[in-house]
């Protein structure tokens, strides 16, 4: 297996990439979503209640990464410094400088200096206003978006792993394994997920790992059927039989010959698993059975919007954030599905045609005449 074999993309992959690129909506959705996620990964650099770097008495400090006690800046308390405290702020301003992120609040910073009652409307201090506890909505949306996507990503990867392994084993070996496995899965999928979560919420303090674990127990079920069907079909293909005749062990045959077939169906399923994970997490937070109080969560924002109808910026922000995020994912999903559909015909504008003398070329825009 020399590297030169691997360097070229297989023609099937090339065609799929071409179809995906040809679907402009999906292509741009992927870019926008990717950009948003990358930006949200650096949320601490954008919205934080600590300076990124600072200098005090000629020494460098990085409060973003290290917690310094207040005494470091000639304060009184040995606890972590609150850089928004007027005394500390003044101390540092006199003896050095601080570089603040563009938004001066983290997702759980309570702004005590806000004028008027909370929730306070959008303004120059709080771009999207504050919620009913005086926390900055923009910071909460930013952190909440990141948390939702990270949660969905972890859940999707976990589901794919479980679904492919279980579905693959059932489909490849068939017979009794398949029969018993399918019955067990039918029973398992009969369990009510939501009630289980609600019961759990009253037993333990649910954190993100608990939620992930519980949802992972059920989210792979949808994938099993698809993967199993693909494996059932592929195990009788001639090249799989040829591999068996060659004496390859089952796990190698599954990985090298059968799995690539099943991955197509799996990949098509990913965006829908993803959106499903985000909506479930939001719904649980909305109902109050989700993440612990104080976590940046979009569902909690929706609940706040519902409880504070006099503050429409809460509900509107939550609505726009969720609908943009989910729409982008659905567009990407559509594009992926088309790209993996062998019957999808490349339309004329999706094919990069080589320019031949007879072929149609787009009219060139006339050169602009420079004005005298």
């Amino acid at each position, binding site marked *: 297996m020399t590297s030169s074999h691997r360097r070229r993309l297989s023609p099937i992959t090339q065609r799929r990439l071409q179809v995906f690129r040809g679907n402009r909506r999906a292509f741009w959705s992927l870019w926008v979503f990717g950009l948003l996620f990358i930006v949200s990964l650096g949320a601490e650099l954008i919205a934080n209640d600590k300076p990124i770097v600072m200098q005090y008495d000629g020494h460098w400090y990085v409060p973003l990464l290290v917690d310094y006690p207040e005494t470091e800046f000639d304060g009184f308390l040995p606890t972590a410094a609150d850089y928004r405290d007027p005394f500390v702020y003044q101390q540092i301003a006199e003896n050095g400088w601080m570089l603040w992120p563009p938004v001066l609040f983290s997702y759980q910073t309570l702004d005590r200096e806000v004028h008027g009652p909370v929730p306070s409307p959008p303004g120059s201090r709080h771009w999207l206003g504050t919620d009913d506890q005086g926390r900055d909505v923009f910071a909460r949306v930013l952190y909440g978006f990141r948390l939702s996507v990270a949660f969905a990503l972890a859940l999707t990867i976990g589901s794919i792993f479980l679904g492919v392994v279980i579905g693959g084993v059932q489909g490849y070996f068939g017979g009794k394994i398949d029969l018993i496995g399918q019955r067990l899965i039918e029973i398992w999928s009969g369990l009510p997920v939501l009630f289980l979560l609600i019961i759990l919420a009253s037993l333990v303090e649910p954190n993100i790992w608990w939620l992930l674990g519980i949802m992972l127990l059920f989210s792979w079920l949808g994938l099993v059927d698809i993967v199993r069907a693909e494996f059932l079909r592929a195990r009788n293909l001639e090249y799989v039989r040829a591999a068996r005749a060659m*004496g*390859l062990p089952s796990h190698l045959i599954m990985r090298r010959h059968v799995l690539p077939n099943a991955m197509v169906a799996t990949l098509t399923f990913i965006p829908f698993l993803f959106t499903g994970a985000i909506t479930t997490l939001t719904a649980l937070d909305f109902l109050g059975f989700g993440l612990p109080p104080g976590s940046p969560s979009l569902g909690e924002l929706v609940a706040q919007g519902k409880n504070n109808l006099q503050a429409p910026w809460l509900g509107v922000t939550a609505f726009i954030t969720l609908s943009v995020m989910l729409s982008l994912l659905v567009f990407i999903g559509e594009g992926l599905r088309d790209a993996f559909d062998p019957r999808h015909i490349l339309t004329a504008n999706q094919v990069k045609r080589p320019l031949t003398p007879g072929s149609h070329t787009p009219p060139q825009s006339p050169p602009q005449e420079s004005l005298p």
Partner: protein
Amino acid sequence: MSDKRLFELRHLTVRFGSHVAVDALDLHVDRGETVAVVGESGSGKSVSALGALGLLPKGTDIEGERRFDDRDLGEFSPRQWNALRGGRIGFIFQEPMTSLNPLHNVGKQLGETLRLHQGLRGEVAKRRIKELLAQVKLPRVDELMAAWPHQLSGGQRQRVMIAMAIANDPQLLIADEPTTALDVTVQQEILALLDDLRDRHGMGLLLISHDLNLVRRHADRVVVMRHGECVETGTTKAVFETPAAAYTRQLIDAVPSGRPARLTGDPTPLLVANRLSVAFPRPKPFLRARPPAFVAVEPLSLQLRQGETLGVVGESGSGKTTLASALIRLLPASGEIHFAGQRLDSLSGDALRRQRRGFQIVFQDPYGSLSPRMPVADIISEGLRFHHPELDQSTVAERIAEALQDVDLPADCGHRYPHEFSGGQRQRVAIARALILKPRLLVLDEPTSALDRTVQKQLIELLRNVQAKHGLSYLFISHDLAVVRAMAHRILVLKDGKVIEEGECQALLESPQSAYTRALIDASSLT
């Protein structure tokens, strides 16, 4: 002369985008005449017929004059087309499995054509359906009316298709490879039926086929096509006896020739099977006893020497492939298998996998047997890398080059993917994959059936050379006795899982003992 002319194409050109599938084809069919269009796969035979009748997908460029019964087809409206197709022109497709709707019974499918084109209903239609089924020589017509497509054999389905095609007394019948998917013994019957119908109704018959034997027996005139162009045309006799074009000559000569090399040396058998049988259990119905298992291969014994080729012949469903799969332990079977002095049937797991190096298999379908996602070098070397993990990369590359050279493929094609190769080349890749492990036995399961005759001939020569070079034993499965004769030392004739006959190749073919063998020999029209 002109009143006899039924169907005429002048300068028919069919283009898919920039690809010219048919280039300026001239063709005509008279009443009561069979015209055959022959050529290898991809020569544009089917496309020309489909294009002439407007059955190609939208966006296909069709140029040239098309006339049917002195009317210009180019000016037809969609409604006129529908009346013409299925009415005055009947069509028979290659694949009888998929061209009948599985959700309608035979009577209903035939009734539909009659209702649409002739407005026949009720008792009248029923009588006509029975008449048609009798015309295509189907037995028990009354029962057949209510039969579902899956209950019929391939030959019976093709007869039903023919009955549908002639239901409206067409003047022209177009048969696109009507017998390719059928057993050799059934092929003759279907063509005899078509001849008979043509004579009785005075139809014109346009026969599209790649099988020259068939064409020679049944056609009056022949059009030879290659790469979308007409190479030669003329009466069957003239074309076959004095072909003008070199390509036609090549097609006619492309019958598997030569005989296997004489056996020498070691008489100890390499592969021995004693009372080997394969049975598939049937599902157990609820609350009733399990029905007896389906016996695919009845207990049989065979031996194969080093360097020898054993041909296994029989119709489809006779258990040839099952026998081969059982011999190399791809299917569970009962009975003893000895390979190179070792009991194969008692091995399992890792021990069996290590033994698999010694015997390899090449499948029929060159398109399905190579993983489409792997470059050829990876496909070929996969077994080698697994069985000999100690080999370094340069040794593996050397062995790949060696295997490619054995099968006459260029050494630099390793990085290409299977779809970049033709059917014959893919089959060579499959053989290279088997050879790289240096096996002693190669099971060839219809290795040439999916290939054109000219390619078939080359592949047979290649297999003989490889056998001579490496002293391989072959278990050669085929339904085509012409191919088997060119390959096998001994022949085993199977029918319904039972051995009908066994013996030296030449002797068996010259004086077959059973009617079944004789029918197989007749069907292959050995010369």
